[in-house]
């Protein structure tokens, strides 16, 4: 039969031709005039209902369903209507016989997942399509090229190798480039030559064997075998951007990704802040590769958080005089502290100074720390939550005073500052300084109901961008076609969890750990906790995806999502997750009696 049923919409776009034909053969049509009842809660459900034309209202809820929305899909599994539906306008519905839908979903798990009631199971079943990416040369850990002048001696080369932890140095000559490696050095020694006066250009190997940054890694391996060399010079355009060693090539193969251990080693080897840049770049590559390989967002965030913590720690250690570390503690705050920041958005950091400790260089070190992070691509914090700001560089007593101010009057500014602090994670220095302050803050806040309510209030600040009609609201961005998933989706969840965590003395500052702890303590139901965690992960995944797109176009990372740019499935899941966010917001509002404020 010729129908106008649109199989391009979710969940029907997951069906193959044969399945589409089966559904087509089971299509009925029903008409309901405005105001009439389509189904009563508890009634036997014998069909899946899809709106052909008109508007349907769910009784007792402010949910409306329009053209091509699937009605009450959850009731299909148990065969009993979960809600009462009215025709709000004159409405035409497609009826798809239940037995046929069930049969089709038996053979198609992606289609079946649509009918699961809980978002967590739905997301798990739908999964992320894992793309098999061919590893590229640029995905492997590359060594910074070490350059020597043509006039250098073999001894100069040996010294540079030692200093730079490098196994090869490069020399640019008028006739081209040459390489001098550890084995060449060994030969010089074996030949009994005087390294101090032996000119290096006599021992260079040329021409260099080069690969391009975006060449296949397999190609690089072939080159190494063909020329019996252990390293290749990596070119980006015509410029040398690194050296690929055999060891890294092999490890890149075995991980099929950039190697996180390689990056941490790279961070550990850095002798000056500029050398950390390579690690920052590798981290970005690592994120792209792991993301496109379908790594779960929470794992990715954890991994990247770990690497970045080492980076901050190393950077601060390089800048600060060694004795200073005994008396201060460097913190990362906000999303970085929660371990939920994947792309560099902006910096949030603070320093705790032991009471009475002073150092003439302290201010300079802090300035340099923030400056260097800016060069690494962390924009400065618009709210100036940075160690260069004296407010976030205080003594223990200073912070205690600050905390008293925060908790005595819960102005919105105080609340946000305390919220930032609550997500703090110590990165280097004396962790005991931080532990003491955390304990101090926790002491008198856990049972201060009035304060807790004020603290939780910002949850109400931004409504999820989904309207009463279960439609997405896109009113953000320059052209008003986007929605801000940070404000409307991620923030209410993160802040709600922070508030509950504060009340119940949860030490963890990662949102997923907070969910888990709160579930264990019985303050969140297990099922809802799972839904919440999966929803948050989905939203952060969308945020990352959009961020990577912006990054690829050299645009600043914002949190705007254009619903039109999403796949149908993503759009449906976004609706589902925003409904979970709305539910959580109501839970928080009720729990902290925000309506009474």
């Amino acid at each position, binding site marked *: *039969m010729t129908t106008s049923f649109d199989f391009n919409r979710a969940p029907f776009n997951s069906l193959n031709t044969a399945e589409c034909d089966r559904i087509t053969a089971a299509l009925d*049509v029903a*008409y309901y005039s405005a105001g009439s009842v389509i189904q009563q809660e508890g009634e036997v459900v014998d069909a899946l209902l899809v709106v052909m*034309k008109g508007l349907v209202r769910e009784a007792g809820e402010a949910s409306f369903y329009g053209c091509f929305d699937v009605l009450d899909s959850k009731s299909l599994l148990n065969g009993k209507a979960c809600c009462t539906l009215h025709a709000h306008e004159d409405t035409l519905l497609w009826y798809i016989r239940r037995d046929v839908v069930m049969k089709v979903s038996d053979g198609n798990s992606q289609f079946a997942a649509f009918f699961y009631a809980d978002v967590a199971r739905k997301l798990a079943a739908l999964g992320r399509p894992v793309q098999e990416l061919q590893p590229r040369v640029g995905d492997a850990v590359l060594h910074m090229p070490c350059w020597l002048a043509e006039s250098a001696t073999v001894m100069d080369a040996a010294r540079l190798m030692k200093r730079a932890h490098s196994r090869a140095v490069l020399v640019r000559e008028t006739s081209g480039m040459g390489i001098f490696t550890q084995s060449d050095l060994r030969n010089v020694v074996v030949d009994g030559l005087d390294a101090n006066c032996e000119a290096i250009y006599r021992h260079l190997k040329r021409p260099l064997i080069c690969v391009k940054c975006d060449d296949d890694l397999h190609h690089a391996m072939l080159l190494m075998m063909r020329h019996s060399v252990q390293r290749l010079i990596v070119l980006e355009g015509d410029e040398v951007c690194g050296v690929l060693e055999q060891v890294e090539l092999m490890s890149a193969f075995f991980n099929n990704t950039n190697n996180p251990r390689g990056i941490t080693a790279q961070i550990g080897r850095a002798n000056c802040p500029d050398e950390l840049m390579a690690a920052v770049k590798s981290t970005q590559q690592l994120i792209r590769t792991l993301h496109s390989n379908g790594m779960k967002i929470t794992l990715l965030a954890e991994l990247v958080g770990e690497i970045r913590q080492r980076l901050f720690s190393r950077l601060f250690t390089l800048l600060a005089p060694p004795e200073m570390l005994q008396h201060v503690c460097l913190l990362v705050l906000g999303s970085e502290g929660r371990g939920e920041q994947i792309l560099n958005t902006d910096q949030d950091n603070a320093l705790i100074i032991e009471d009475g400790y002073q150092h003439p260089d302290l201010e300079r070190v802090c300035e340099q720390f923030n400056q260097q992070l800016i060069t690494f691509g962390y924009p400065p914090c618009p709210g100036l939550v940075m160690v260069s700001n004296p407010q976030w560089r205080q003594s223990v007593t200073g912070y205690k005073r600050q905390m008293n101010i925060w908790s005595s009057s819960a102005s919105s500014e105080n609340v946000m500052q305390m919220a930032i602090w609550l997500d703090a994670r110590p990165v280097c220095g004396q962790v005991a300084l931080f532990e003491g302050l955390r304990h101090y803050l926790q002491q008198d806040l856990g049972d201060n109901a009035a304060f807790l309510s004020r603290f939780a209030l910002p949850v109400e600040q931004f409504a999820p961008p989904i309207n009463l009609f279960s439609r997405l609201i896109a009113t953000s961005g320059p052209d008003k076609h986007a929605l801000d998933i940070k404000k409307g989706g991620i923030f209410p969840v993160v802040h709600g969890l922070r508030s509950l965590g504060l009340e119940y003395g949860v030490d963890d500052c990662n949102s997923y750990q907070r969910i888990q702890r709160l579930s264990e303590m019985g303050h969140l139901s297990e099922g809802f906790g799972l839904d919440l965690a999966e929803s948050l992960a989905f939203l952060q995944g969308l945020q990352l995806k959009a961020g990577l797109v912006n990054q690829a176009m050299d645009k600043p990372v914002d949190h705007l999502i254009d619903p039109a740019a999403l796949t149908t499935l993503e759009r449906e899941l976004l609706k589902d997750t925003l409904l979970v966010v709305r539910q959580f917001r109501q839970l928080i509002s009720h729990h902290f009696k925000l309506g009474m404020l």
Partner: protein
Amino acid sequence: MSWSYWHRWRRSRSLALANPQFAYLWDEPCTDEYVSLDCEMSCLDPKQAEILSIAAIRIKGARIIVSEHLKLLVKPAGQIDPASIAVHGLRAQDVQNGMAIETALAELLHFIGPRPLVGYYLEFDLAVLNRLLKPLLGVALPNAAIEVSALFYDQMVTAHRPDVDLSLSHILQTLNLPDLPRHDPLNDALLAAMVFLKLRCQPSLIP
């Protein structure tokens, strides 16, 4: 006339039936069940036209049971008017494997039973059907017939607007119903059923 009189009259008609196996056509129809009907014909003259295809869909309450529709292809005895081929798209070779008209009519009668019939310009279809049913049934179809364009006319006509556009596309547009590719008998039957369901809210118009 009273219901019992009507009933007796129907009974007496069924006794006069040439072929008693179709007596069920005179049964009392189930409430709230209808059949939407559409036929494609070989030409536009009801005295000559042969049926090429028939589609029928049952309506139960608010639901149009499209999934259990009846769709029959009939092999005509004579020629198909070339002008009509352009409309319905059925060529001689398309209906070559169609069934004999007697078999098709028996299946159709079985499908519709005593239910009232619904259609758009049903009159023409019924004229041809009754002509062909005469030898089989002895009488014309006893089923009530509901013309959706008439329902539409009754609802739309006013003193200020005596002329009502009864084209199907105008009806669909006015009633805010979706359009489907036309001149496929199944789609036409479905469209008529949708028009019927939408206009049925005027109970006085329904027999």
